[in-house]
């Protein structure tokens, strides 16, 4: 009877999660959706506390209070520019929690009171398989997410890191992981009678998957991070679902499946945004110093760029009818989103039609630019997705590119030899004037030169994006 109530509570929670995610399909309903999901979680937790015969309430409440306090603190203190690494860290915590729950379930069979209150049945092979799987996915998610965290917060170099024999090592640890999991499953019939070999195998699976997680993320370069973050997001869901199989708990399976699906979809969108397969991203090494440059037919020889100044750009902008702003990772690095908004406001006040064009893989995580611009109070209806705005560039007077590069490189359309050939881009080269705000002539992440720098209607405004924008704002004000 009690079990029925709990299951109904879990069902309510699952329905609230689905409605919560549905809320996220529009910015107008998104906040309420998130609150619905949180309510669902609260219901699931309370129901569990009421039914699970809580033997040690102090530890439970202590754990909830401690975890809640840390979570609240982290979420309050993070700056919006620190969002990519926080999301990565939370993914990691999710994976770790799943691995720990599965391990605890295994240890439960070794409890001292096996004979007393709860008769523990011998473990089935399928339970052991799910435990192994849950520890495996959870550990990879955990260590992989923290490498991603390190890269995103620049504690580790954002460049792809690799060394000789790395792929062999990765393969080796993958074999150890799978072997350990198989060994655990074979020991299931004797467990918990003969427990030591299984526990050693569990340890081997855990350690090998932790190392595997590191080896898998380390060779992936900074601009591929949107794919990695999305993929780890999906792993954290899969890990939760696997734990649900371990505990035979529908709430975990449903929620894990929802999150897993969400991560897979985002990963797909990110891969399409770069026109690369998931495998290609995971193998990594893209964008190193030797990356691809030689093959392209494009050469910078005999071509020159035209530099411009803030006052010239200000004049161009104020007399424009239509301006499209294209932000990229450079805007995030310079933390220039507030200046961007100020400039946009000034231009709008002067009657200029201002829009923002956001490439799906701009920045370091899915939706990175949108969050930064929202923080700076740019209304979301000024932000346009690539497919919605690409037709508008030929009627645009000025495209203002702030810290983006590869996502506007026309070579992706016509230069079959270019490493980014086939990648969908924003067609800024169709607009009458193109202003690039860049720190230097350094090529973008893909390591290739952008032919647009040398275009007849392109002007380069060199300098830190924030400084350039500040200068631009005062010039526009003065005019």
């Amino acid at each position, binding site marked *: 009877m009690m079990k029925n109530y709990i299951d109904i509570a879990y069902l309510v929670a699952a329905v609230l999660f689905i409605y919560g995610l549905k809320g*996220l399909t529009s910015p*107008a309903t998104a906040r309420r959706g998130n609150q619905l*999901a949180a309510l669902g979680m609260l219901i699931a937790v309370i129901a569990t506390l009421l039914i699970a015969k809580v033997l040690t309430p102090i530890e439970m409440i202590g754990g909830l209070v401690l975890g809640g306090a840390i979570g609240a603190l982290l979420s309050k203190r993070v700056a919006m520019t620190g969002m990519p690494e926080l999301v990565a860290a939370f993914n990691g*915590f*999710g994976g770790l929690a799943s691995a720990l729950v599965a391990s605890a379930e295994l240890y439960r069979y070794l409890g001292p009171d096996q004979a007393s209150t709860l008769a523990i049945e011998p473990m089935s092979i399928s339970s052991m398989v799910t435990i192994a799987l849950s520890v495996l996915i959870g550990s990879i998610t955990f260590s992989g997410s923290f490498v991603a965290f390190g890269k995103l917060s620049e504690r580790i170099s954002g460049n792809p890191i690799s060394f000789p024999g790395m792929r062999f090592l990765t393969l080796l640890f993958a074999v150890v992981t799978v072997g350990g999991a198989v060994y655990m499953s074979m020991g299931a019939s004797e467990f918990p009678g003969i427990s030591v070999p299984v526990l050693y195998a569990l340890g081997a699976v855990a350690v090998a998957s932790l190392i595997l997680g590191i080896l898998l993320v380390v060779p992936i370069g900074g601009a591929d991070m949107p794919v990695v*973050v999305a993929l780890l997001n999906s792993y954290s869901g899969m890990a939760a679902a696997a734990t649900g*199989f371990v505990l035979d708990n529908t709430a975990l399976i449903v929620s894990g*499946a929802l*999150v897993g699906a969400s991560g897979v979809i985002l990963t797909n969108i990110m891969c399409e945004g770069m026109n690369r397969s998931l495998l290609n991203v995971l193998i990594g090494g893209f964008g190193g110093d030797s990356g691809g440059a030689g093959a392209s037919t494009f050469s910078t020889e005999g071509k020159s760029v035209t530099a411009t100044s803030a006052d010239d750009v200000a004049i161009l902008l104020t007399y424009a009818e239509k301006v499209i702003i294209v932000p990229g990772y450079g805007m995030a690095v310079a933390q220039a989103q507030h200046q961007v908004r100020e400039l946009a406001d000034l231009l709008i006040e002067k009657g200029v039609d201002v829009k923002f064009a956001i490439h799906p893989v701009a920045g370091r995580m899915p*939706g990175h630019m949108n969050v930064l611009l929202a923080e700076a109070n740019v209304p979301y209806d000024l932000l346009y997705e690539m497919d919605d705005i690409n037709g508008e560039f030929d009627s645009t007077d000025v495209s203002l590119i702030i810290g983006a590069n590869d996502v506007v490189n026309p070579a992706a359309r016509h230069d079959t030899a270019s490493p980014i050939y086939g990648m969908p881009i924003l067609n800024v080269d169709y607009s009458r004037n193109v202003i690039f705000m860049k720190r230097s002539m350094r090529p973008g992440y893909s390591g290739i030169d952008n032919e647009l720098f040398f275009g007849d209607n392109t002007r380069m405004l060199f300098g830190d994006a924030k400084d350039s924008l500040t200068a631009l704002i005062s010039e526009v004000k003065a005019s």
Partner: protein
Amino acid sequence: MLENIIVFVLASLIGAEVISKVPQTLHTPLMSGSNAISGITIVGALLVAGMVGGVAAKWIGVAALVVATINVVGGFMVTDRMLQMFKKRKAPEQK
């Protein structure tokens, strides 16, 4: 086991259906929000930590509980913080 697989597959399909309609502008809140949902392991942590088991099982469970709670509370709160920043353009007459 089979029942669980059925539930998993159906839930994945629902998830895919709903999430494919999320606009690009909300991709970050989608990730942090769905990540908070994956903190549902909090329920698993409560169950394993609360059940009859050994000392090891209990403390591993409590560790899992702390980590999962960070995920749930932090995830939902930071998503809320982000979402409250997403605003529509003001109507001209309000200006």
